[in-house]
C-alpha cells in the first residue's frame, strides 16, 4: 500500500466518523435520547485519531520525499532544510486544510474528553454541531483540496515550499497559532448552537462557553501579533500592518471574540445582554470561516493569496448555510434570551462594557465594510478598486482611542449604581498621572495630538489597572499581616479572571503605545551608497562596507555589509547574518529580501536592501527608525500570562452556597 492510499483512507475514515457523529449527535439530541452520547463521543475520538494519523502520514511522506504524493511533489524539495520540510505541511492550500483537520480533531477530542463524565444535556447536540463543521473540513480534504492524489511517474525532486515561508523562523509558529485560533472558535459555536437547539438556556453552559472562547482567543491574539512581526521582519517594506484583507480576516473574529469576553461578564452578573452575547459567539465563528474563505479562495489579490484554488464556491455555500442556521437559531430561541433584569445607568461597570461592545461592533463593521467593498464594486459595477489604508486608519483611530479610554474608566466604575463622589475621588490620581505623562512627553519634544492622547490615556489606564490588580493584595497585607508575595498570590487566585483580565489589559496598552509611537514618530530615509559611504537616519549613521554573497543548499544570497553608528558614537557591525540581504530561491523569480532589524527597547533601526550593483560596488537602501515598535511583540508574554491566570482551573473548594440559583445540571459543567 502506498502512502497516498493510506493517507486518503485515513481522511475518508475521518469523514465517515465526523458525519456519523454529526448525524447521530444532532438527531438523537433533538429527540432527547441521551443514551446515544457514548456513540457520538466514540465517533469523535475516531475522527480525531484518523485526522492525526493522516497528518502523521503526510509528515512522513514529506520527510521521506515521497514525490508520488501530489502535495509532496508540489511543496517538497530535497534541498529544503528538514525543519522547513515539516513546516511545508501548512505552506500551501491542501496541506494547510489537512493540518486544519488535525487541529479540529485535537480540539473536539479535548472538549469531548474534558466533559466525558460531567456535562449538560446539550452536550450531544454541541458535539453534533462541532462534528458537522468537522465533516465539512474532512469533505474539503477528501474532495476539492485533496493532497493525496497519487502520481504514477513521480519526478526525482520538487520545487520546495513557497520561498516567503522558508525565509523566517516565525513562519514555523505563526500559522499554527492562527489556525489554533481559527479552528478553536468551532468549540464555542458548538456549545452555543447545542444549547440553543436544545432550548435549555440556563447558566450552566456559560462557563464552558467563556473558557472555550478564551482558548482560541489567546491563540488568535498571538497569531495576529506574530503575523505582523513576520511581515515586519521578512517582507521588508517597513511596516507590520497594512490592512491587507488577510490581516483583516484574522482581526475581525478577534474583535467579536474580545467583545464577547466582555459582554459575558454582564450576562453573568446582570442576566442581561443574552441575545447579544450569544450572537457574538456565533459571529466569531462565522467570521473565522469567512476569513478562511478570504485567505484560501484567492478572491483578493493580496500578498497572501499564493494558495488559490477552486475551494471558493464550497466555502461560500458553507458560509451561507452557517448564516441561515445561526439566524434561524436566534430567531426561534430569541424569546428565551430576553434579559432578566434591566441595565441600570450608563455610568456603571455594565454601562462601560456595553459601550465597549458597541465600539468593538463599530470597528468590526468598519473593517468588514472596507474589506468587502472592493468585492462588491467589482461584482456589481465591474470596477477594480481597493480601499486605501487611510480609510482604515482614520476610522479605527477614534474608535481605538475610545476603547483605550473605556479600558481605564470601566474598571473604576462599580456594578449597578455609581456614587459620583466616589468616582471623582478614584479618578483623581489616574487622571493626574495621565495628564502628567502627556505633559512630560510634550516637554521632551513629542508633538501631535494623536500620540500624546494615547500616551496620556495609557498612563491613566495603567494606574487604574495596577490599582485594581494590587489593591486587594495591599488590603490583605494590612488586615491579614501577609507578606507581599503571599498577598498578591492569594488575592490573584481568589479572583483569577479579574486578575488575568487586567494583566491582558496591560499588554493591550503596551501594544497601543507601540503602534502610536512607531507610526507617529517613524523616520524614513532612502538612498544609494558607494563602498565606505555613510548616510544618516535620524541620529544614527549607516556605513556601507561592501557586498557579500553566499550559497546554501536551498538558496543563494547577496548581503550588504553595514556598520551602524549610534548617536553616542557606538558602532555595531552587521557583516554576518544580521546584514540586510536578498535571497534567491530556485522556485522564485523574485529575490526575497531580509531586512536588517536592530532591535532595542526604545526603538528599532530597520534597514532593507533595495538593490545593488556588483560591478560598481554600490547598494541602495530603505531605512527606518521605528520608536518602540518592539513593544507590540513584547506584549505577547503579558497576554499569555493573563489568559493563563484567567483559565487556571479553580480548585474545588466549598460547595455552592444555597442562595445560588439551582442549575439544571451539574454545576460547573456544560
Amino acid at each position, binding site marked *: 500500500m502506498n502512502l497516498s492510499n493510506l493517507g486518503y483512507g485515513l481522511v475518508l475514515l475521518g469523514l465517515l466518523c465526523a458525519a456519523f457523529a454529526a448525524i447521530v449527535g444532532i438527531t438523537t439530541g433533538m429527540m432527547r435520547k441521551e443514551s446515544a452520547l457514548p456513540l457520538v463521543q466514540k465517533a469523535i475520538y475516531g475522527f480525531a485519531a484518523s485526522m492525526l494519523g493522516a497528518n502523521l502520514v503526510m509528515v512522513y511522506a514529506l520527510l521521506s520525499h515521497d514525490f508520488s504524493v501530489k502535495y509532496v511533489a508540489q511543496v517538497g524539495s530535497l534541498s529544503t532544510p528538514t525543519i522547513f520540510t515539516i513546516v511545508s505541511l501548512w505552506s500551501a492550500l491542501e496541506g494547510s486544510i489537512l493540518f486544519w483537520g488535525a487541529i479540529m480533531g485535537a480540539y473536539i477530542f479535548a472538549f469531548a474528553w474534558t466533559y466525558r463524565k460531567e456535562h449538560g444535556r446539550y452536550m450531544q447536540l454541541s458535539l453534533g454541531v462541532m462534528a458537522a463543521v468537522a465533516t465539512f473540513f474532512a469533505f474539503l480534504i477528501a474532495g476539492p483540496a485533496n493532497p493525496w492524489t497519487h502520481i504514477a511517474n513521480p519526478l526525482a525532486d520538487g520545487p520546495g515550499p*513557497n520561498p516567503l515561508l522558508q525565509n523566517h523562523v516565525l513562519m514555523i509558529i505563526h500559522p499554527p497559532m492562527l489556525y489554533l485560533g481559527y479552528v478553536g472558535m468551532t468549540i464555542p459555536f458548538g456549545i452555543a448552537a447545542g444549547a440553543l437547539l436544545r432550548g435549555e438556556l440556563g447558566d450552566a453552559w456559560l462557563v464552558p462557553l467563556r473558557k472555550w472562547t478564551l482558548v482560541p482567543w489567546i491563540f488568535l491574539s498571538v497569531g495576529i501579533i506574530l503575523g505582523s512581526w513576520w511581515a515586519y521582519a521578512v517582507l521588508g517594506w517597513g511596516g507590520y500592518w497594512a490592512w491587507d484583507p488577510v490581516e483583516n480576516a484574522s482581526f475581525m473574529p478577534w474583535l467579536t471574540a474580545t467583545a464577547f469576553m466582555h459582554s459575558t461578564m454582564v450576562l453573568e452578573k446582570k442576566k442581561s445582554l443574552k441575545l447579544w452575547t450569544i450572537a457574538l459567539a456565533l459571529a466569531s465563528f462565522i467570521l473565522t470561516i469567512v476569513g478562511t474563505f478570504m485567505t484560501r479562495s484567492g478572491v483578493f489579490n493580496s500578498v497572501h493569496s499564493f494558495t488559490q484554488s477552486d475551494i471558493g464556491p464550497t466555502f461560500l455555500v458553507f458560509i451561507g448555510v452557517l448564516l441561515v442556521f445561526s439566524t434561524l437559531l436566534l430567531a426561534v430561541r430569541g424569546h428565551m434570551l430576553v434579559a432578566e433584569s434591566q441595565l441600570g445607568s450608563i455610568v456603571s461597570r455594565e454601562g462601560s462594557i456595553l459601550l465597549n461592545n458597541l465600539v468593538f461592533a463599530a470597528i468590526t463593521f468598519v473593517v468588514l*465594510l472596507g474589506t468587502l467593498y472592493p468585492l462588491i464594486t467589482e461584482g456589481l459595477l465591474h470596477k477594480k478598486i481597493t*480601499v486605501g489604508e487611510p480609510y482604515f486608519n*482614520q*476610522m479605527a483611530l477614534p474608535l481605538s482611542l475610545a476603547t483605550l479610554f473605556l479600558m481605564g474608566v470601566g474598571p473604576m466604575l462599580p456594578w449597578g449604581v455609581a456614587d459620583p463622589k466616589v468616582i471623582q475621588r478614584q479618578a483623581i490620581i489616574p487622571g493626574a498621572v495621565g495628564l502628567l505623562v502627556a505633559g512630560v512627553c510634550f516637554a521632551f519634544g513629542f508633538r501631535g495630538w494623536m500620540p500624546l492622547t494615547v500616551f496620556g490615556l495609557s498612563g491613566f489606564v495603567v494606574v487604574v489597572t495596577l490599582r485594581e490588580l494590587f489593591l486587594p493584595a495591599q488590603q490583605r497585607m494590612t488586615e491579614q499581616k501577609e507578606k507581599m508575595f503571599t498577598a498578591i498570590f492569594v488575592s490573584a487566585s481568589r479572583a483569577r479572571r479579574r486578575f488575568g483580565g487586567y494583566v491582558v489589559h496591560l499588554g493591550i496598552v503596551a501594544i497601543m503605545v507601540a503602534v502610536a509611537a512607531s507610526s507617529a514618530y517613524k523616520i524614513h530615509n532612502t538612498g544609494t551608497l558607494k563602498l565606505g559611504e555613510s548616510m544618516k537616519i535620524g541620529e544614527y549613521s549607516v556605513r556601507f562596507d561592501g557586498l557579500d554573497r553566499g550559497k546554501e543548499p536551498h538558496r543563494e544570497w547577496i548581503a550588504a555589509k553595514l556598520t551602524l553608528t549610534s548617536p553616542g558614537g557606538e558602532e555595531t557591525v552587521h557583516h554576518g547574518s544580521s546584514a540586510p540581504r536578498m535571497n*534567491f530561491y530556485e522556485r522564485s*523569480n523574485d529575490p526575497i529580501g531580509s531586512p536588517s532589524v536592530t532591535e532595542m527597547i526604545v526603538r528599532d533601526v530597520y534597514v532593507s536592501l533595495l538593490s545593488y550593483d556588483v560591478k560598481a560596488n554600490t547598494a*541602495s537602501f530603505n531605512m527606518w527608525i521605528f520608536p518602540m515598535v518592539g513593544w507590540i511583540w513584547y506584549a505577547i508574554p503579558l497576554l499569555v500570562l493573563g489568559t493563563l491566570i484567567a483559565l487556571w482551573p479553580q480548585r474545588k473548594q466549598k460547595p455552592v452556597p444555597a442562595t445560588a440559583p439551582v442549575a439544571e445540571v451539574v454545576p460547573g459543567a456544560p
Partner: protein
Amino acid sequence: MKPETRNRLIALGAILVAGSALAWIAFGNIGENLVYYWKPSEMVAQGQKAYGATVRLGGVVVPGSVLFNTEHTALTFQVADSHKGDAVKVTVKSEQTPPQMFREGIGVVVEGAFSADQVFRTNRLMVNHSNEYRAPTDGGMPDEAWKNSLTKAE
C-alpha cells in the same frame, strides 16, 4: 408606557442613531480613500477626472524610457498598456530607488496620482510579482539567465 419599555426604546433609538451615523461616516470616508486599478489607457480615458485620484497604475516599463539619477534618486520612466508600439504611454516620476527587480520591459504597478501636467508621480513602485511556481519550460528556470547576470557578474 412602562418605564422599562421607554428605557429600551430610548436605548434602541440611541443605538440606531449612532449606527447610522457610523455607517454614513464610513461610507463617506471610503469614497475619499478609494484606490483605482487602471491601465494607462483607462486612466487617460478618464480625462480630467483622473487628476488627483489615488491610482494603482499597472503596465509595462517601456524599453529605453528609464532615466535614473543616483545622486538625487530621481527616476523617470514610461509605463504602457503593453509592448505594442501604439500602446498608450504615461510618464512616471519617482523619488525612490527602484527595487532590484526593476528593469526595462518588466511589468510594474505604481501607486500615486496623475496630474494635469501629464506626469504620474509615485512613491511606491512594485514590480509585478509572480511567486507562483512555473515549471521549467525550455530546460531552465525563467529568468535564470537574468538572475545569473546579477549574482555572478564580477
